[in-house]
């Protein structure tokens, strides 16, 4: 079952032009700072705004189960519209219909569709491959926004239909990676090397978080990795961290662990950018 948490139109920072971004639900990583916590789990989830709740009891009265099954019955009865279900199924024709709506904008702006998440390449790959193939066939350029922590085979399957990979690299340092992301980064880095060798067009995206990777050394390690492995990079995006998702954690009934993190200052970001440019990555940008 492939679930989608949102279809964001007029995305102008997920690749070139005006794009529609699809957020798939479920991710193999567990980044502490994740700003889309509703896309971490592969299951449908209920989000409810407990702060605004007036405890009228209508949701409880309507609930058909003893414990929440994320069935969504309560969503319609809440008089204040405080509840929503994250995770909706789309048939491929229905999804394509939605994605085709902004075709005129893609064409004018050189944009298209971006499949993101969660992790798009850790879904039902038959679904994803078919979707990518169909998009390609109708002439809508599609980007893949990936964390890279997936079997390379999954990447290979969609490579022929992909315009650009927006490839996240957080840390080259293995220990730190394990600490903050919970998983080893070897697969991510190997996949990146292979993808570059196989001709994937790459935009490397680096979320910069002061406490995690916001030092010259951390970023230099990334530069060295890219250089030493001759990775062909079209563009580097340095994304200063923001705790944008913290409200959603509360709605999901989860604890936000990223409160302690801080974004780097604009000056620091500028310095990091210079670091990349001096290393030969002339097309380095701050922001998406």
């Amino acid at each position: 079952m492939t679930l989608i948490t949102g279809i964001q139109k007029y995305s102008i920072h997920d690749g070139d032009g005006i794009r529609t971004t699809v957020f798939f639900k479920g991710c193999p990583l567990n980044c502490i700072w994740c700003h889309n916590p509703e896309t971490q789990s592969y299951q449908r989830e209920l989000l409810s705004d407990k702060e605004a709740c007036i405890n009228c009891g209508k949701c409880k009265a309507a609930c058909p189960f003893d414990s929440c099954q994320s069935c969504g019955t309560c969503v319609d009865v809440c008089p204040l519209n405080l509840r929503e279900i994250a995770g909706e199924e789309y048939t491929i024709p229905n999804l394509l219909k939605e994605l085709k709506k902004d075709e005129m904008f893609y064409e004018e702006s050189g944009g298209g569709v971006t499949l993101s998440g969660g992790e798009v390449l850790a879904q039902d790959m038959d679904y994803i491959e078919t979707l990518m193939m169909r998009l390609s066939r109708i002439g809508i350029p599609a980007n893949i926004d990936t964390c890279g922590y997936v079997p390379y085979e999954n990447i290979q399957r969609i490579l022929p239909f992909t315009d650009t990979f927006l490839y996240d690299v957080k840390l080259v340092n293995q220990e730190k990676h394990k600490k903050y992301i919970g998983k080893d980064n070897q697969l991510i880095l190997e996949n990146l090397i292979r993808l570059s060798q196989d001709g994937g067009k790459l935009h490397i995206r680096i979320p910069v978080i002061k406490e995690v990777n916001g030092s010259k050394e951390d970023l230099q390690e990334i530069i060295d990795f890219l250089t030493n492995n001759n990775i062909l990079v079209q563009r580097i995006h340095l994304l200063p961290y923001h705790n944008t998702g913290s409200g959603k954690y509360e709605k999901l009934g989860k604890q936000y662990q990223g409160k302690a993190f801080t974004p780097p200052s604009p000056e620091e970001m500028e310095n990091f950018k210079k670091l990349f440019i001096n290393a030969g990555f002339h097309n380095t940008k701050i922001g998406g």
Partner: protein
Amino acid sequence: MEERGMNARIRSLRRKSLETRAHIDMERTKSMTKTYERYEGSMSVPELRAMVLKDYFSTKKLYIGDGELIVGEKGDSPQASPTFPELCCHTIEDMHVMNDRELINFQVKEEDYTYQKDSVIPFWEKRSIRKRILDNMTEDWKNAYEAGLFTEFMEQRGPGHTVGSFKIYEKGFLDYKKDIQNSMDNLDLLNDPHATKKMDQLKGMMIACDGILILGARYAAYARELAETETNEQRKEELLQIAQNCDVVPAHKPQTYWQAIQMYWFVHLGVTTELNPWDAYSPGRLDQHLNGFYENDVEKGTLDDEKALELLECLWIKFNNQPAPPKVGITLKESSTYTDFANINTGGITPTGENGVNNVSYLILDCMEEMQLLQPSSNVQISKKTPAKFLKRACEVSRHGWGQPAFYNTEAIIQELLNAGKSLEDARCGGTSGCVETGAFGNEAYILTGYFNIPKIFELTLTNGYDTVSGKQLGLKLGEAKDFQTYEELFEAFSKQIKYFIDIKVKGSNVIEQIYANYMPAPFLSIITNDCISTGKDYNAGGARYNTKYIQGVGIGTITDSLAAIKYNVYDKKNFTMEELMAGISDNFQGHDQLLNMVRNKTPKYGNDEDYADDIMKSVFEMYRKEVTGRPNMNGGFYRINMLPTTCHVYFGEVMTASPNGRLAHKPVSEGISPEKGADINGPTAVIKSASKMDHLQTGGTLLNQKFTPQVVAGEEGLKQMANLVRTYFNMDGHHIQFNVIDRETLIQAQKHPEDYKDLIVRVAGYSDHFRNLSKELQDEIINRTEQSFN
């Protein structure tokens, strides 16, 4: 206040324009009263009206401000507003209201009250057009008008609603006198039953020419007089140049760029002093009109870009010096602003169909950006042939956040005009004025007759024609809401009510048109509008080449969502009954939380690129269009529609109960063709797609607002995509779009009332998101960031 302007001169003029309080100036009324006392009854109405202008221009106080390069004011000084008691004779209470009200106030001096009471009211009240109109309207019309079903533009201000063409710069008023004489000589006094009437009109035009010639000569003399005593050599030089300019224009055609601008300004003063026409007067395609003069002067070495820009900035200040004359009552509510809607079109294409962007176009954008004034409203026409560079520059100016320039689609305008029977060349020379209204510049009287409250008429449809707000049976008795068994039956009843009220509105407008034609001609405006001179017909009597009347539909978002709420919940899904809905409406949804949640949040809505609601929008639009378009008006033209509200959506909301879509009682209805506030939740491309499903080419203009925070349009990427939004909307035949880049105050409101700002998008960090979806901390951060970005 932030100081703006390219140099000290402009900054000082601009400051004066902004800091001076708008005030009433009685000189015109005093002069006019004398003219009437002397001539009324002894000459024809057109001659009398022209004599009013001539006498005023012969005696009025002249004004040349320090440092001014373009001269002439409607009243005694900047921010002076003459009164027009022949149109609307204000009561003493009106005068107190305009002096005392918090917004859009005008200073009234003690002696003005006395003069109004002792001289103006006794003489003008019985003569005023407003009285004549109200005396001639039926009970049905008055009831509907008072209940806010429609407004009437001509009740306090004259028709006009037109724009200058290149004609203004091709001839001087001495040349027009020859044309008028020629037309007189050609009158067929043997066979033409209207020849005498035409002669009167032409005589009036002749007198009006004399009026403007006298004003020009007086300004030339006054500038020389000031030069004589001027000690500053540079200023002396300027005053002498102003005098020389006024020797040439308006008598002769302008020879230089400077004179061309001065010529326009004299014409503007003529039109807006003669009567108080809606939307003042506009220069139209100013860049194309001025470019020949500009190139010529630059080649001769007498003009450079800096001087050219300075003169434009002087003109901008002149526009801003003229507040829209005071409005009262319902007319104030429909247009609550000092803005007099002079609107300048930049870009577009040339009369032969080539790209019309030239050097002056870019200077106008620079001027707009620098001046940031309410008036003149400035727009750009974007054609397929418009260079990307120009569009991008226009976006750059627009994203500063105060909504200018607005963007208009040249190809749509041309097709709209062709559809309405204009020639290709006249269409290419046309554009938009006022807010978004399409017209053939210099050739057309395209009169807005009033706003039409579409959602209110639906409200009456649900209550068997009875208006619970005014307590009157206004509409047809076609049944109570619960009686309609199907959506189609309901829609049919709604259509009948619309027809009923359009009939009432049009009957009234036809009478009003005749009143203006007979009693309030506009001989000066007729001189400069084709083909009034050659046909010997006045502008207000159908003398223009094309004569269109518009009725402006308001509230398409509210009505669409209201119909969708009923179709979806009552008829299709049977989520609740009509009785339940009507109970909710009558309680203003108090205690009907679940119902309210249903109609507000769980029902398809216009503005999301979903066909369910958008198809309903199309059906309402089509029904309204068919009902209006093609009805004959009394000046030889036809009625057409456009879709814009000015500030009328607020007033129209005030007179309404709650709506089926969850809009609460007395809250504004949706504006322009924008979705209901908070209804569009899928971003700007979805809004644009929904809006483009309307058949824009069948209208005379539609208005679409888009709100952004500065971050969304920040940087190169934001700018590029803003331009792409415009292009794509125009590829889909959209007529107009404008961008509001949101300020801090709005964001604070958005934080307090997120339900009203569901469509507000903010640029967060590496991505964009809906403001309502952000944590409070982040909202705070963005609010502070926004303020910084405005400094």
